[in-house]
C-alpha cells in the first residue's frame, strides 16, 4: 500500500471504530437520520475545510474562514433583505467578494512575504469587523428560494434526510478531490508545500498559485457562508465564530500535515465527520456539563492525534533500497 495513504486509512478506521463504539452505547445513533444530520449539520464546516486543506497542503494557514463565513451570511442577508436582490444574484456577488478578499490576502502573502498566519489573522479581524459594520444584529432572510431549498431533500429510508446543503458539501468534496489529485493546479499546491524554492526552480508559477490557493479558500468559505445562511435563514456577524479552528482540526485529523506537502481531501471529510460524531455523541449522552464538554472534546482531539501519530510513526519514511531486491 502507498505509504502516504496510511494516515487516511488510519483515520477512517478510527472513525469506524469510534462510531461502532457509540452505536453500542446508543443504538439510536445508527440511523439514517443521524447520518443525514452528519452531512447537513457539518456542511458549512466541510466546505470550508476543503479550502483549508488546500491552504495547509501548500504550507500555509487560513484563519479568516470563520470570519468570511460570517461576513458572507451578513452580506447575503443585506443584499436580499435590504436591497431586495434575488438570492442567486446575491450568492454570485457574495462569492465574488469572498474571492476578491482571498486574492488580496494571497497577494499580500506572496508579495509582502508576510506569513499567512498573520495576513489571514488581519483578514479575520477585517471580515468580522466588516460584518458588524454592515449590521451588528442578525437579519432573518425570508425568501421563497430559501424556503424551497430548506424544504427539498431526499428522504432516506428510516426518516433520514439528504438535504441540498448536504449534497452541496459532497459535491465540493468531489470537486476538491479532483482538483487536488487530478489537475496541474493540485500538483502545484503540493509542490509549494514541499518546498517553495524548489517549486519555483521547477517552474511552478508560485505567485499565481499562492493567490489562487487563498482565492479558492476564501471562495469556498464564501460558499460555506451561503450554505450557513441557508442553514439558518439568517445573516449574523458573529456566526461561525472559531470555525477556522474546527476546520484546521478536521484537516489535521484527516491526516494532512500542517507543515505542508502531504494530505488528502478525503481525509478532511473523515475529520469533519469525526467532529460531528463527537458532538452527536455528547448530545446523546446529555450528562456532560459545559466544562466537561470542552474537556472531552479536547481529550478526544488529543486521542485521535495520538492514534494517528502512532500509525504514522509506524509508517515513517524509510529510504528505499532500489539496488537491492
Amino acid at each position, binding site marked *: 500500500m*502507498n505509504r502516504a495513504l496510511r494516515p487516511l486509512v488510519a483515520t477512517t478506521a478510527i472513525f469506524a471504530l469510534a462510531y461502532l463504539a457509540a452505536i453500542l452505547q446508543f443504538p439510536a445513533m445508527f440511523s439514517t437520520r443521524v447520518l443525514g444530520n452528519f452531512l447537513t449539520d457539518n456542511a458549512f464546516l466541510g466546505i470550508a475545510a476543503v479550502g483549508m486543506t488546500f491552504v495547509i497542503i501548500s504550507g500555509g494557514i487560513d484563519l479568516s474562514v470563520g470570519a468570511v463565513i460570517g461576513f458572507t451570511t451578513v452580506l447575503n442577508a443585506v443584499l436580499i433583505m435590504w436591497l431586495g436582490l434575488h438570492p442567486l444574484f446575491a450568492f454570485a456577488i457574495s462569492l465574488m467578494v469572498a474571492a476578491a478578499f482571498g486574492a488580496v490576502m494571497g497577494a499580500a502573502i506572496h508579495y509582502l512575504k508576510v506569513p499567512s498566519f498573520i495576513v489571514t489573522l488581519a483578514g479575520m479581524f477585517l471580515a468580522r469587523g466588516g460584518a458588524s459594520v454592515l449590521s451588528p444584529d442578525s437579519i432573518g432572510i425570508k425568501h421563497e428560494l430559501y424556503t424551497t431549498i430548506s424544504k427539498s431533500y431526499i428522504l432516506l429510508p428510516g426518516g433520514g434526510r439528504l438535504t441540498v446543503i448536504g449534497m452541496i458539501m459532497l459535491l465540493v468534496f468531489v470537486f476538491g478531490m479532483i482538483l487536488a489529485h487530478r489537475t496541474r493546479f493540485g*500538483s502545484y499546491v503540493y509542490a509549494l508545500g514541499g518546498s517553495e524554492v524548489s517549486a519555483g526552480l521547477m517552474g511552478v508559477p508560485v505567485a499565481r498559485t499562492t493567490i489562487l490557493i487563498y482565492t479558492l479558500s476564501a471562495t469556498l468559505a464564501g460558499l460555506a457562508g451561503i450554505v450557513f445562511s441557508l442553514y439558518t435563514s439568517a445573516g449574523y456577524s458573529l456566526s461561525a465564530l472559531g470555525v477556522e479552528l474546527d476546520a484546521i482540526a478536521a484537516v489535521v485529523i484527516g491526516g494532512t500535515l500542517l507543515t505542508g506537502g502531504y494530505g488528502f481531501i478525503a481525509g478532511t471529510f473523515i475529520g469533519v465527520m469525526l467532529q460531528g460524531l463527537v458532538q452527536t455523541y455528547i448530545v446523546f449522552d446529555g450528562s456532560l456539563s459545559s466544562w466537561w464538554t470542552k474537556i472531552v472534546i479536547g481529550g478526544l482531539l488529543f486521542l485521535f492525534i495520538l492514534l494517528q501519530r502512532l500509525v504514522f510513526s509506524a509508517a515513517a519514511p524509510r529510504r528505499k533500497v532500489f*539496488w537491492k531486491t
Partner: protein
Amino acid sequence: MVEGAEPVVQARGIVKIFGQHRALDGVDFTVRPGEVHALLGENGAGKSTLIKILTGAYQPDGGEVVLDGAAVRFSDPLDAQRHGIGTVYQEVNLLPNRSVAENLFLGHQPTRFGIVQRKVIEARARELLAGYGLEIDVRAELGSYSVAVQQIVAIARAVELSGKVLVLDEPTASLDRNEVAKMFEVVARLKARGLGIIFITHFLDQVFEIADRVTILRNGKLIGTKALSEVTATDVVRMMLGKDLAFDHGGVGVAEAVQGPVRVEFKSLGRQGKVAPFSLTLHEGEVVGVAGLLGSGRTEMARLMFGVDSADGGEITVGGKVVSIRNPAQAVAAGFGFCPEDRKLDGIFGELSVRENIIIALQAKLGWFRALNRDEQNEIAGNYAEALDIRAADYEMPVKLLSGGNQQKAILARWLAIDPNFLILDEPTRGIDVGAHAEIVRTINRLREEGLALLVISSELDEVVAYSNRIVVMRDRAMVAELSGADIAPSVIVAAIAENPGVPV
C-alpha cells in the same frame, strides 16, 4: 561541436551584486549548439550565480542574456524552461514529497479536459528512467529514494525540458562511477542532437572526459574561455586558483605512520536492520578511511557512532573509559565531532551567521550557562574561518548565502572549534573545488599530525588512499574488511568491495 556556429545562448557583461558583494562582475559566456561547455571555478567563484541568471532564477544587475541572437529576459525558471533551457541546480531541487513521475513532469503534465493523465505520465517516466538504467517504482515518493536516485531524476527532468540548452550544476557530486558513466552516455547523445550543454563540476577528469570548451571564473570575474584541446589540467587549475597548486597526492608513508595510544574503541556496535555489529579501534594520530559503494551502510555506521541513531548493543570506550552515547549531545560531550553528509538538511543553520554556525557546537558543548561572549566568538570564528579559508564577505552574513563549498568548510570549522578528540567526516569533499579539496586533504593530514583520531567516509578512492592509515570496507551494511599497510591501494580496495558483490545497479 559545430565550429563557429552561432551561439545558442550567450551572457554579455553580466553583473550581479548581493548587498555590497559583487558575485559576478562583467562576465561573458557563450554556449554553442552541440558543445559541452565546462564552467569551472573555486567555491564561491560565481558559477551557480551565473547559472541562475541564465535560467531566470535571478535577474542580472547589469549585462544581458542573449538567446538565439535576441536579447531575452526570463522572468522566472518556468519562462526559461519554455524557451528550451533545462536545468539541474546544485542542491537537489526537486520535491521529496511528490512521486518520481510527478517530479519529472511537474509544470508540463499532459492533461485531457484539465485532468492530468497519470497513466501516461507514469509510463513515460518509467521509459525515461530506463534510459538511465533506473528501474524504480515511479509512483513512490521521490524522498524515499537515495540522493543518487534523486539526482538522476533531476537530470532526467532537465534533459526532458531542454530543447536547446541543458545546464548541469555539479550533477555528479553524489553519483558513483557507474551512474556517472550512464549520465555521460546521455550527455553524449544530447550533444549529438545539437544541444548546448553547460557542465559544472569539481572533477577535472570528468571535464577532460566530456567537455569541449572550458570557462573559468575567479571571484566573480571571467578568467578565460579555452578549448580543452589547447590546455592541460595544470593550466586549468592554475587559472582557477591564480597560482600553482601543491597538491601532493602521494601520501606515501601515511600508512606506516606511527600509531599513538588507543583513543576511541567501538565494540560490536550495531543496530538491527541497519548495520551489522562491528568493532573498530582508532588511535591517536590516525585516520581510518571508510570505503564502500553507495548505500553500503557507511553513513549508518557513522550515525551509530555519533549517537544519531541509538545502537542495540555494543560498547564505546573513549580514552580507556566506557561512555554511553545515546544521542549526539553525549557524543559531543565525549569530544566527538561529525560533519554530516547532507549539509543542507543536517549541517547548516541557514539563517544564522557564519560566526554562529562555527561556534554553535562549542557552545552546545559548554552548556547553556557558559556563554561565549561576542569577542570570544569573533576570535574563534575568525581563526577557524581563516584557517580553512572560508570565503565570506563578512562573518555576520547568513551562512545560507555562502557557496556550497564554503558552507561545508564552515561545518568543518564548527567541529574543529570544539577541539575534538575524534572526528567523523562523511563525504567531506563532496561539491568542493580543487583548491579547497587539497585544503581539506591537507587539513586532515594536519589534524592527524596534531594527534586527532579521524574517521573519513569518502567515495573517492584516490583521496581515501591519500590520507588513511587504515581503511575499513563496508558492504551490505556490514564491515567486511580492514586494510592496512601495503593493502592501502585502490586496486585492493576495489577488490575488497567487489568481492561477492550483491550490487547489480
